């Protein structure tokens, strides 16, 4: 870099500092409507580097994580005194990448008339309760009504059709777990696009990713156990609502929760604010 270029760069920096200098050493902030972030080289390196490292680490750590899940399943099996035993099946989670995922050999049953009556009563009561909700609980009312709507479809399906149900408990567990593992490995890539591009310390970036992945690694087997327990207890009639309302969507919202915390730590001074 030539001397004249250095002088010009120094001049630009000084002009920039002067623009932001207020009285008594205060800083004049740029109006939010004018602000924009810069994409420094450091961010670009983080943008590519951190997710690649994390995804590779995930691939190395996944077998240990699924071993941990198996231990949890074994503990739950004896604790809840489930029939059958814990089964470990090898699934292709990514092309040419296999993992041993735990499941139970037991299966759930086709809902009896009693199940249908209990389920219908539950839907009616829940729906009626939502009608009593005050204004501030409207979102909760809508959430419950969505649950009621899906549960109603399940009641109608099991009332009209006859066995067999196209899914088994083992298949359901394996499918959902595979999807959840894919979501875990996508998390660093998602954060690369939406979080690492901001100015944050490297430590914070790594911390947010580790916390999210760590949380999911513990949450997912517990979520699966709750699903299995409820489906076993209430028959297949519980599966649709658990799959659509409390499956992958919950995982994504956990990621959004950590993301919102992470993005609150972004250094906004970089944007000229």
């Amino acid at each position: 870099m030539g001397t004249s270029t250095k002088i010009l760069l120094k001049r630009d920096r000084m002009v920039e500092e002067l623009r932001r200098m207020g009285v008594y050493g205060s800083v004049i902030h740029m109006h939010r409507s004018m602000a924009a972030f810069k994409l420094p080289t450091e961010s670009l390196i983080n943008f590519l580097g951190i997710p690649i490292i994390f995804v590779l680490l995930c691939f190395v750590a996944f077998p240990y994580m699924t071993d941990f899940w198996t231990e949890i399943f074994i503990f739950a099996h004896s604790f809840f005194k489930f029939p059958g035993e814990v089964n470990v099946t090898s699934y292709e989670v990514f092309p040419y990448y296999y993992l041993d995922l735990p499941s139970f050999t037991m299966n759930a049953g086709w809902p009896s008339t009693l199940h249908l009556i209990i389920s219908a009563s539950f839907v009616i009561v829940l729906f009626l309760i939502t009608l009593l909700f005050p204004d501030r609980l409207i979102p909760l009312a809508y959430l419950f009504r969505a649950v009621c709507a899906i549960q109603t479809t399940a009641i109608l399906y099991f009332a009209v059709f006859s066995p067999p149900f196209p899914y088994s408990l083992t298949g359901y567990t394996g499918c959902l777990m595979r999807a959840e593992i894919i979501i875990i490995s996508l998390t660093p890539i998602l954060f690369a696009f939406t979080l690492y591009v901001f100015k944050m310390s490297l430590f914070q970036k790594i911390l947010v990713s580790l916390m999210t992945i760590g949380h999911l690694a513990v949450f997912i087997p517990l979520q699966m156990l709750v699903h299995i327990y409820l489906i076993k207890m209430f028959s297949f009639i519980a599966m649709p609502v658990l799959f659509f309302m409390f499956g992958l969507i919950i995982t994504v919202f956990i990621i959004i929760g950590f993301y919102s915390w992470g993005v609150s730590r972004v250094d906004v001074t970089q944007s000229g604010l």
Partner: protein
Amino acid sequence: MEKILIISLYVVITIIILYTIRHYLFAFNRLFSKPRQPYVDIGAADWPSVTIFVPCHNEQAVIADMLENLLRVDYPRDKFLIVPINDRSKDNTQAILEDYAANYPDLIKPVHRKKGIAGKAAALREVSPLFDTEIHLVFDADYLPGRGLIKQLVAPFFDPEVGAVMGRVVPHNVNHSLLTRLLDLERSGGYQVDQQARMNLNMVPQFGGTVGGVRASALKQIGGWRNDTLAEDTDITMKMILNGWQVVYQNRSECYEEVPESWFARMRQIRRWATGHNQALAKYFIPMVRQFGKFPFFTVIDGLMLLGVYLMSLLLVIGWGLSLTLFYMGASIGTGILIILAVSTYNTFGNFATFFEVASATRLDRTESRILLVPFLSLCFLVSLLTVAVATIKQIITAPFDSTLKWQKTQRFRNGNGNGNGNGNGNGNGNGHSNGNGNGRLIEEPTRGYAYNFLYVNGRTVPEHIFNHDRL
């Protein structure tokens, strides 16, 4: 049957993915591009004549604040006129307007509508031709315009190709409840990112029908305001674009509004928006499609996506229905691992896009703690999604082009104590206009040396920046 359902699901997913890509594109553009804001810094000029229309219907709780703030703007006094349009108010609105008109006869000329079609669009259609100024600005009655706002909104009209200008709407009652906080986040994403990115990318920024205005000659050319729509703003946007006028979004031109404080009011508001927007979709989809080859490709695409935005809720509900049906049928929507990979990716990136957009906006707005509420936006989305979907289904069944749909006014929540006639005219009724000086003159607030302006709210003069505090 199964094949048809699977193809339908893929079509729905493809459309949703297009909107997802749009969210990411807008967020990245806004985050890392210099915002385009033409002429925003002009302070001294030969300003054009302006009429400011304020449609009112039972606005006694808010109209006095609105007028007080308009009377404080720094636009040349001989160049602007305030025209409140009282549309059959049954409360004290008419008396308040008459009182202000008596005190400021050269500045405020209220029009009282007693007959004709009710609603904002009809009121504007009837009254705007009566005022022969170059620029027509429109504000809702609950807004609190700042001192420099009118100049900022008028400045883009120095470009002769500009037909309409839209400013940014910022809620001032943010800290009232979870709903108002969530609506603040939603507005932030909509304006700070969505609108500004469209502006940066030369796409179709939307004229929102308030905090904005139109060039009177352009309005005349496109046939004026339509009175057979619930979304006159979208209608004007589309007509302007189709007639070759530019619509400008001015992010710096912020104006404070009152967002609904109850979920019922919010649902009513969004139902009206959806119905009106869908009317515009029915009217302008084909004309917009015909612009391929005439307008830039992405402008047309953005115009079409803007028109279809409220149809997305119905589409999502259809997507859920299809997924459920295929689930019960035990249908395989693809083969093996690749489909699980695709579904997981779609779930992760698709669901995340809107939250990223809002988070980006709140970061640009320099709010910190409020970002933590971003996951709760899902509640807001769920309510909006189901409300809009039901409204759209009803509209499709009953009246897709119905021009007689009833206008439903958004409920106001501001403390109404400050609405009377006491702006210092000596007959104040002790209702909160505490800064009246007894002789009918405006209170000139000291602005020199301050980096912010003052607004008039609930009978008090407050610095504008108090609305910007960042608390959960």
